[in-house]
């Protein structure tokens, strides 16, 4: 169709029955077990799983660092085994951490070298290096050796190195690990900006705040298998409740009050305990949905009890992840 990019029809990432075995002393370990999924161009997908689940193995195969034992992985239609060179020209992996940079070279030299490796022509490399260093806030440190950089600065340089060739697929492995909250927030903003450019992002992270802020879809991997593939909202709701409501009421806790709160439609469970000073009672209700009807019903259930304070916290992805991990074992 006129104006339509034919390459948009091809998934940015396509994984078909992918399996990877490792030989260890005493046998074989299956790190990926017939995993299949696809990611349309421009989507940001988080890959979650406990340590050893297979997330990094997946990233290694997509970045062409590892060969699969069987199955296929494609980047914009290019098989990472059969058309490795084409795949490498479209994908970039950001590993982060203290390693992966030439510590005796400056930030600018590191970036220029990574640009060369990624196939950026000499003529455009200089301008790309300057622009990227500005974008990640390293202009002033550009001519300093990387060994003098802080952890956050190195992480930003890693991101810049991953972006220098303007990849269409970006693999981010634990991008905010080791960063202070300000640095992590800044990095998330930079990553979020990539989505505007239509870059497809596959993100592995233990920090569910990364998932919450960046991803629109979650893949859960457990023991090498893809166990869940769902939207972030659906993932958050998988915990079984939407929010935790904490109500502090004056005085002792009558059992009937807890029962009344539990009986409110939309409340999954309720419990009560005295406050530390013993003068108040804290009621905690897990609600399946949070809306004005539930608020009104809770108010009615409290009856004449004097409400001192009330907080509402949406179910966190940490709780969802913990619940999912329990289910999958």
């Amino acid at each position: 169709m006129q104006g339509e990019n034919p390459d948009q029809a091809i998934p940015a990432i396509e994984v078909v029955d992918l399996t990877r075995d490792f030989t260890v002393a005493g046998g074989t370990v299956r790190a990926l077990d017939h995993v299949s999924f696809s990611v349309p161009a421009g989507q940001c997908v988080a890959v979650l799983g406990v340590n050893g689940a297979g997330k990094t193995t997946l990233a290694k195969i997509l970045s062409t660092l590892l060969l699969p034992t069987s199955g296929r992985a494609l980047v914009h239609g290019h098989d990472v085994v059969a058309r490795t060179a084409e795949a490498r020209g479209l994908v970039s992996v950001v590993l982060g951490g203290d390693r992966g940079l030439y510590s005796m070279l400056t930030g600018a030299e590191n970036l220029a070298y990574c640009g060369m490796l990624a196939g950026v022509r000499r003529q455009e490399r200089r301008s790309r290096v300057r622009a990227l260093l500005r974008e990640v806030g390293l202009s002033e440190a550009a001519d300093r050796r990387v060994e003098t950089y802080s952890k956050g600065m190195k992480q930003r340089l890693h991101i810049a190195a991953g972006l220098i060739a303007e990849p269409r697929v970006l693999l981010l492995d634990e991008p905010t690990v080791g960063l202070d909250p300000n640095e992590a927030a800044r990095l998330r903003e930079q990553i979020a900006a990539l989505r505007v450019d239509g870059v497809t992002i596959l993100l592995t992270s233990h920090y569910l705040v990364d998932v919450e802020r960046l991803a629109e879809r979650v893949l859960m991997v457990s023991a090498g298998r893809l166990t869940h593939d769902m939207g972030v909202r659906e993932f958050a709701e998988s915990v079984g409740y939407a929010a935790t409501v904490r109500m502090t009421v004056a005085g002792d806790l009558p059992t009937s009050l807890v029962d009344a709160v539990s009986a409110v439609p939309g409340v999954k469970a309720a419990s009560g305990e005295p406050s530390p000073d013993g003068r108040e009672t804290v009621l905690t209700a897990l609600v399946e949905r949070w809306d004005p009807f539930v608020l009104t019903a809770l108010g009615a259930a409290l009856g004449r009890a004097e409400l001192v304070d009330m907080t509402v916290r949406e179910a966190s992805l940490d709780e969802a992840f913990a619940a999912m991990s329990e289910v999958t074992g």
Partner: protein
Amino acid sequence: MSGPDLGDGAQRLVPRRPSAPDAVVASAAMQVRQNLVHPMTFAAGVLNPLMFLAIVVVPREERLAGADVTAVLSGVTLATFWAACVWGGVGILRRERWSGTFYRSVTAVQDARWVLLGKVAGATALNLVVVLASLAAGSLVLGLRPEVEHPAALLLGFAATVVSGTAAAQLVGSLLVVTRYGVALSNAISTPVMLLGGTILPLTFLVPPARWLSRTISLSWLQDFLASAATGPVAWWALGGAAVTTTVYAVLGWRLLTTMVDRARREATLDLF
């Protein structure tokens, strides 16, 4: 990153393309910058040759002169340069693995062979410059005046030494890419290679089978050629021998790196991240 407009409003994804000249030049320049601040460059390129020179020259009762000076200097140059090359070739890959940067070369758009060639060539050229500069300074201090019968041939010999050293370092580096014990193995082979190359003892001291074996080492051919360039007549057959052995190293090293890296990708034996 979009590719060329095809005129129908559609844009296609065009992957980046490799460029061998860019890979070689940029990698060489980068490696030179790294090595200039690495202490081993000083140890291998300055201390080693001066130590060798001092051991050979200083304890003598009679002063060395003429062709003997040239023979000593070329021998010391070859021995210390070769050691620096082997260290360099293996050391480059070892440091890349240790610092976690090797994966960049292995997953790059650029062909890893050109990248490694550039790095090794840069390191080798720097090694030779540093060694020659150190020996020139040492010669001045010790009052040594080499006599060279054929200076152009000597320069050609040094150029051949850089090329051969590069090829040998690339081969050794490629062989050891899959092992964690690269340094130990390269140290283990370094001395026998120098022995077979005739830089520790004259080749006439070796038993005949070993002398045949020495001809698989380009160092032995280069030793003969450089010595002949100093004292004449020029042994062009020795340069030919060096060219043949160097070509074998280059072809083997070129094929081996891809084979070894692919094997490591299959067996997950690259400690990359």
